């Protein structure tokens, strides 16, 4: 089991973090989120061009970087921490599904960042479903590609990421694999957990920073145990969430037998921990945290949206119970 980062992995994380800090700081996030497209296409282009992230886990034979899930988890942690708007997670889910079911046609375009693809999740909801060129639909073991179809944009709690309801007309079957689809679903859970880890970390960093600046009754609020002990508990959640995400990513790369239970564990733990920390970040900010101008609510809403993205949280615990044969 490998839970610590290699030098190369730390460099990758540093590069992505630096890129997002300069190309998509939070004021940019707000501007892009409220824009026509809901994201900055230039940032998305550079993300895939300079950093080649759209094809990160795509095999080199399909024009990808052939990296592992340990690397993908690091990238999603950073895009989550930065609340990067746009279709990065959507295309990531699509590449995961296509890779697992062994598609040859669509992957190169997605890896190149020229094809914008997404996956229709339960209830026909798809991240960035309105903007996507291709919506992948899962019917049992079959994966269909829908280029047209009826797309109804939805109003989202999380303004930084759009969703649409996709009425899947006739799509062409591009592959069929029971194992591939099952494994893809587990990998979706790992990918979202990695993003949740990033949202959790950024929320904790925000309130830790504020606790060192904000004064009340003549003292910095971080010097009060009422705040300090809450932050210590939040830190414990971060340590555990990071450990679980690293483990799940390792299982995705190295231990296929452990993947399902690791993925369910990751969603069950990280989903809850992320919302709790984002909630407490907002509450501990006091009144300012309730304002639209402050960023706390963006993390709070993303945390809630991510917690239910792959279904009611209860589903992951039920799955865990099954896998544990309880």
């Amino acid at each position: 089991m490998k839970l610590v980062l290699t030098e190369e992995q730390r460099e990758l994380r540093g590069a992505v973090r630096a890129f997002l800090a300069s190309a998509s700081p939070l004021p940019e996030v707000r501007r892009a989120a409220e824009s026509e497209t809901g994201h900055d296409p230039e940032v998305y282009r550079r993300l895939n061009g300079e950093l080649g992230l759209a094809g990160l886990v795509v095999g080199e034979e399909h024009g990808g970087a052939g990296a592992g899930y340990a690397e993908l988890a690091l990238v999603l942690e950073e895009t989550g921490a930065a609340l990067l708007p746009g279709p990065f997670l959507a295309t990531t889910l699509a590449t995961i599904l296509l890779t697992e079911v062994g598609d040859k046609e669509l992957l190169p375009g997605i890896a190149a960042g020229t094809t914008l693809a997404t996956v229709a999740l339960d209830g026909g909801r798809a991240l960035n479903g309105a903007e996507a060129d291709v919506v992948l639909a899962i019917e049992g073991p079959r994966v269909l590609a829908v280029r047209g179809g009826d797309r109804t944009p939805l109003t989202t709690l999380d303004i930084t990421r759009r969703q649409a309801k996709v009425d899947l007309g006739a799509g062409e079957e591009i592959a069929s694999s029971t194992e591939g689809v099952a494994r893809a679903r587990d990998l979706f859970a790992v990918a979202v957990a990695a993003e949740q880890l990033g949202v959790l970390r950024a929320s904790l960093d925000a309130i830790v920073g504020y606790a060192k600046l904000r004064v009340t009754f003549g003292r910095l609020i971080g010097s009060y145990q009422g705040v300090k002990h809450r932050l210590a508990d939040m830190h414990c959640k971060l340590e555990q969430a990071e450990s679980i995400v690293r483990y799940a990513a390792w299982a995705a790369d190295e231990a296929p037998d452990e993947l399902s239970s690791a993925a369910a564990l990751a969603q069950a733990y990280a989903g809850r921990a992320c919302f709790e920390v984002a909630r407490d970040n907002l509450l501990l900010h006091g009144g300012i945290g309730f304002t639209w101008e402050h960023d706390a609510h963006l993390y709070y809403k993303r945390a809630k949206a991510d917690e239910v993205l792959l279904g009611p949280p209860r589903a992951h615990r039920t799955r865990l119970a099954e896998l544990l044969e309880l």
Partner: protein
Amino acid sequence: MNLQEYRRRARAWLEANAQDTEAEGTPDAGGVAAAKAFMARMYDAGYSGISWPGEWGGQGLTQAEERAFAEEAAGFTLPTYVFSIGLGMCGPTLVDLGTPEQKARHLRPLLRGEEIWCQLFSEPGAGSDVAALQTRATPTEDGWTVTGQKVWTSVAQHASYGLLLTRTDVDAPKHKGLSMFIVDMRAPGVTVRPLRDMTGRAHFNEIFFDDVHIPAENLVGQVNDGWSCAVTTLLHERLSISSGVGMGGRRDNPVAFEALRHTADTADPVVADQLVELHIRSRALALFNERLSQETKAGVFPGARGSAAKLLLAELTMFQADLATSLAGPEAVAYEEGGGRLAEAVSLAPAMALGGGTNEIMRNIIGDRVLNLPPEPRVDKNVPFKDLKVNG
């Protein structure tokens, strides 16, 4: 007239006058006009300021009649929200501390709904710690000039007057250099800006004071004695909050137990158990509030124990919005036209924990004033304000 008879008449009046009225939070201009008309009828019928002194426009009756009317009114939705700050905080403060001229000028129009009031204490740099406020009032030959910023002011956009807390002596310790004024919200230099909150709407305002002139006779209480005046106001505020606390919220709350029992998949025993947990917490708080109000009627004033009810309501509000969205799953956070009630609830949930004192402040109050635990060492008590560490 005995209480029963009073009650009967009150109910009759409400049935005749408050059948199709509705409360809509902060109304628009049209809503305000309608609300003012309603308050005027209510005043003329003798149901505004029931326990306030008769000489200033009140009815001079007792708390018993006041409570009797409130209980009857609970069955109706009165459009009185815009007057709540004036009736609950500003008015009672003037009754306690105002000059005869101030009372004569302001109380009757306030009770009759002709003039709306707002309260101007909190600042961006002074939230839980109100006494750290930095809005300055400097003396002029015929009064004062005020400069600074206030925040979290509700109904300010409709208000004629505000009760303003300012700093008048920076050489004194923070609590000893404050003064309270009545400020004309239409005076030159007063800017009211809606404050957009995380729900995307503006429930509150920011107020900017830019060399605003205040006549000397608008001082409330003594110069530099503003803190004790503010304590009086906050006491009235806590009363009006805690009396209302947890009194059920609106029946159609989409995240309350009664709604979730119909929308959630209770065939799943784990989901059913989560609703049992919600029921337990809801009943526990409701029964606690009922006990507090029975004690109040029995003449036992709950005092700081009301802070426990406020803390529990804040926690329950967050718990149920979180639970409801988790049970609903993806539909809760991405929806078509009109499907956003759960998203709205989870966006609004933090408000209960942030308004009227944070959860941490409530726990301090319970610890200090209910359990009589020793206080934190205070570093800000006797330092001249100008030497005190405050938010930049």
